[in-house]
């Protein structure tokens, strides 16, 4: 038998006050296995299920399709800045001309949004906030990611109710959405709430992209992570500005006419 096994055997015998016997090398192996099993056991009561894949799906859905959606949404809205109701309506109808648009909406928007939102609420519930004790930028971003996630989820539910849901129940048509947005954006309370919602959503998107790159092992070192944070900070500013410009454009007189036919106030 090996020197090592002998050594361990002598050590164990010294503990047990027994003489070492070479034939006990096999039980020795079992004893070590037993220790391994024991060491694993103390964690099994809290380690149930597997959240690795759930968390990875949560992370991936945040990029594909949700981040892509927020960018496409921003570009559609920005048509209102560039060309008023006409360009905005043609951008909206472009999306609605996609084949099987309801399936695209369901599979690439609503289902991912529900999973990301609901699992995200669970992630937020699981975390503490210790920005008082550790007021570092990244720790603030960690806490803000969770706060903005909750705000964004509530905002999206409300915003979908005001717009897409009203189309779904036949109260307004896709062509009238510009008018709906006009009525929302001229209401001061709604404008403030939309501003908060937009800033929260875009922060969650930009900081989430930073975290995605870390969580999938793309930005590993501190320099890569720092540069990434600058890049996403710039993205945050640009995307927020473009959303806000669109929101301001909806307040304009051009959209007033589109809203004239609507009596949307009762819905919102």
């Amino acid at each position, binding site marked *: *038998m*090996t*020197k*090592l*096994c002998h050594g*361990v055997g002598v050590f164990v015998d010294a503990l047990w006050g027994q003489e070492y016997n070479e034939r006990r*090398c096999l039980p020795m*192996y079992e004893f*070590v296995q037993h220790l*391994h099993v024991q*060491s*694993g056991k*103390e*964690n099994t009561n*809290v*380690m*149930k*299920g*597997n*959240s*690795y894949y*759930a*968390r*990875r799906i949560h992370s991936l859905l945040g990029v594909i399709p949700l981040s892509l959606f927020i960018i496409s949404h921003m570009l559609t809205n920005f048509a209102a800045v560039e060309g008023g109701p006409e360009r905005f309506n043609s951008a909206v109808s472009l999306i609605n001309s996609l084949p099987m648009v309801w399936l695209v909406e369901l599979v690439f928007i609503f289902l991912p949004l529900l999973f990301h939102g609901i699992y995200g609420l669970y*992630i937020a*519930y*699981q*975390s*503490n*906030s*210790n920005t008082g*004790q*550790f007021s*570092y930028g*990244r*720790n603030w*971003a*960690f*806490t803000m*990611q969770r706060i903005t996630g909750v705000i964004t989820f509530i905002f999206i539910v409300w915003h979908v109710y005001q717009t897409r849901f009203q189309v779904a129940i036949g109260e307004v048509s896709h062509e009238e959405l510009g008018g709906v947005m006009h009525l929302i954006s001229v209401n001061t309370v709604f404008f403030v709430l939309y501003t908060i919602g937009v800033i929260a959503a875009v922060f969650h998107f930009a900081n989430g992209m930073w*975290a995605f790159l*870390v*969580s*999938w*092992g*793309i*930005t*590993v*070192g*501190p320099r890569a*992570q720092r540069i990434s944070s600058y890049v996403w900070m710039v993205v945050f500013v640009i995307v927020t500005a473009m959303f806000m410009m669109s929101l301001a454009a909806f307040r304009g007189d051009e959209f007033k006419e589109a809203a004239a036919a609507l009596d949307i106030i009762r819905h919102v």
Partner: protein
Amino acid sequence: MADAAVANKTVKLEITRQDKPDSQPYTETFEIPYRANMNVISALMEIQRNPTTAGGQSTSPVCWDSNCLEEVCGACSMLVNGKPRQACTALIDKLEQPIKLAPMKTFPIVRDLIVNRERMFGALKRVKAWIPIDGTYDLGPGPRMNEAKRQWAYELSKCMTCGVCLEACPNVNDRTSFIGPAALSQVRLFNAHPTGEMNKDERLETLMSDGGIEGCGNSQNCVRACPKGIPLTTSIAALNKDTTKHMFKKWLGM
């Protein structure tokens, strides 16, 4: 004597105490004579010699845990003025008074400033933070380690399981089973070792189970709090990369 020169100078400490693991915590204030070059441990020793509160009331001496007194053993971790750190390297001259001492909240309290860090050792066992060399015959020497790799791996080996990173992490709490940054970084260390690498996949799979690497939320407090300056967030991101690769390889049956 040197002591005479500072005879009137005192050090004020506010200590969060707890008599039993399940009893209520309370605070006691102590005022002890100042000596040059004191640290938190020597201040606690002074209280031990004369366990009297600032109000003049006799009390039980404050219990704490310490061993090496040179920041390599990890035993004396506690909250010093709200920040988790080693009491032995917390110099009185550099601290704002009154110095607030409290046990770390993440761990079960044994008594006063003593906590039970067993969950960390459990985590090391769970991720198999060792190199298995047991066999039925002499396996001979293992492969040599690349020198450049050895240099960064050495930094990871400085971990003393002190628990400061777990205390700083907002995701290590009683609502998660996250094992914390220290054990994750040890996986990177043992996966980097040429012999330890032979069990790389096994360790990665443990990190891909509940309480593993998914528990990290990137607050990056750990790397700022670590008294040994271990690049914990780099370790975590590198392991994110390794688990991602492992996941795809497994799916593709590679």
